[in-house]
């Protein structure tokens, strides 16, 4: 499965992670409960490098919990979680900082810092945690804001932005340090269809042009299928979002959560053809 350039015996863990087809996030029989309420029951899945997992499910099904477990914001009661070759379920907060350096998270409402401008928010990690010089931070912030088309808003406060712009700034903040994995928690919920499509396109561009592996948690079916079935192609300076070929769209897999368990896992074509009554109801 892995596209390894040399014999397995001579490989370092980093070689394995750098190879195409490497597993970047692995959930192995992960369970979690809050008091008596079971949130996840023996959930297992693998996110392959450069691929996308779209996690669907009703409200309270445990979708966002999966993202928080990957980041180490929550600890599982049972099971094993690997992120970029590190076992995060056993790590303390200090050790997790290293793992989080290679992860980006877009929170449901953006979670932008109210007291910082767009520039401050996007460059937060670079200046506060990575201690880049101001000039380099500004250069990177302007580059990312240019990529997502928000350069003119660079000195605005989050309260001056629309919902869609806040979500896109949150994406810019998450990708500022060029993480290998991006996690999106309901990135389009509450947005109008046109703005939601803009956000979807950013997710596709990051995946296809920057090679970022991603997990998208949503219950917006339109956006989920758009992300799964489209691809970004660079045409000179312009970027086109077009329908993906079959093999490309198979790189985006769906996970359907129901009562804390995985009810379905597979590509969009299989999801649409599923005869499971719950999935049919969910998709109708």
């Amino acid at each position, binding site marked *: 499965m892995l596209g390894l350039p040399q014999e397995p015996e001579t490989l370092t863990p980093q070689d394995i992670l750098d190879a195409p087809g490497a597993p970047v996030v692995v959930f192995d029989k992960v369970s979690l409960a809050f008091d008596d309420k079971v949130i996840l029951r023996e959930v297992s899945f693998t996110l392959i490098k450069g691929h996308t997992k779209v996690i669907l499910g009703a409200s309270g099904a445990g979708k966002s919990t999966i993202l928080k477990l990957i980041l180490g914001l929550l600890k599982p009661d049972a099971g094993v979680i690997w992120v970029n070759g590190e076992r995060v379920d056993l790590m303390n907060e200090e050790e997790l*900082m290293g793992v989080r350096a290679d992860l980006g*998270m877009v929170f449901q409402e953006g*979670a932008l810092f109210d007291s910082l401008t767009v520039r401050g928010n996007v460059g937060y990690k670079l200046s506060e945690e990575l201690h880049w010089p101001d000039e380099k931070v500004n250069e990177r912030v302007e580059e990312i804001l240019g990529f997502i088309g928000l350069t003119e808003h660079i000195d605005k406060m989050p309260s001056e932005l629309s919902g869609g712009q806040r979500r896109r700034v949150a994406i810019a903040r998450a990708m500022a340090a060029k993480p290998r994995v991006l996690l999106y928690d309901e990135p389009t919920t509450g947005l109008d269809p046109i703005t939601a499509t803009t956000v979807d396109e950013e997710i596709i561009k990051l995946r296809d042009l920057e090679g970022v592996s991603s997990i998208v948690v949503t219950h917006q079916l339109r956006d989920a299928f758009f992300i799964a079935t489209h691809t970004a192609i660079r045409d000179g300076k312009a970027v086109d979002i077009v329908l993906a070929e079959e093999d490309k769209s198979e790189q985006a897999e769906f996970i359907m959560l129901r009562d804390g368990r995985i009810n379905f896992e597979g590509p969009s074509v299989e999801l649409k053809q599923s005869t499971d009554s719950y999935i049919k109801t969910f998709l109708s």
Partner: protein
Amino acid sequence: MLAQVNEWLKAATLEVQEYMRLCGATAVGAFTRPFYYRDIIQQFEQIGWGSLTVVVLTGLFTGAVLALQSGMTLDQFGARPFVGRLVSASMVKELGPVLTALMLTSRVGSAIAAELGSMVVAEQVAALRALGSDPVRKLVVPRVMAGTIMAPVLTVISDLVGVVGGWVIAVFQLRVASSVYWTSVLDGLYRQDPWMGLIKPFFLGFAIVSIACHVGLRTRGGTQGVGRSVTTAVVAASVAVLAVDFFITRLLISLLY
């Protein structure tokens, strides 16, 4: 009934445990890298400079009313010239530290609980962690450092302004000579009194800000939860100020006098 008591005890124990854990993490964060210098300076400015007006007004009126009230009582013994002793001793040893701390509780404690509570509810604290920042080092340490160091500074200002407030009343209303008042102010203080007045605010400032941070970071339940946190922080910190004041006073009396 027994089950309810049991639940309450468990919840109270958990709160104390989490508070102690936060205090431990804050202590570690205060002496080890990374430091967020910009946040530390910002908090010194907000907590120190921002509280100056309210502390000055509180000190001024407390000193003035103290002179008014004690003047009436001292008149019964023909001891009006000693009004300065009462003002200075009361302000420096007790009223200055406690009233400054209570003012800080209402102004700073409530603001910290509301700010951190809102950040928790809006997932900004989770975002901080996701971006690789430790919320204790980034949010709690600067506030606790500023609160612990600025409380004594503000207390000294409050004491001085209080004594001046007492002077205004003593001179213009009680007709005590200015030189008599100031001599009395100095006579009223033992050598250990300024130490008492200086040491206590360190503990009171720490208690106020650490409790407000703890309550703010444990906010649950949306905007309603933020409101609850502010109330809890102000009530808990106010009670803590009075309790800590008693125990520290008791300790300092046995150590200093």
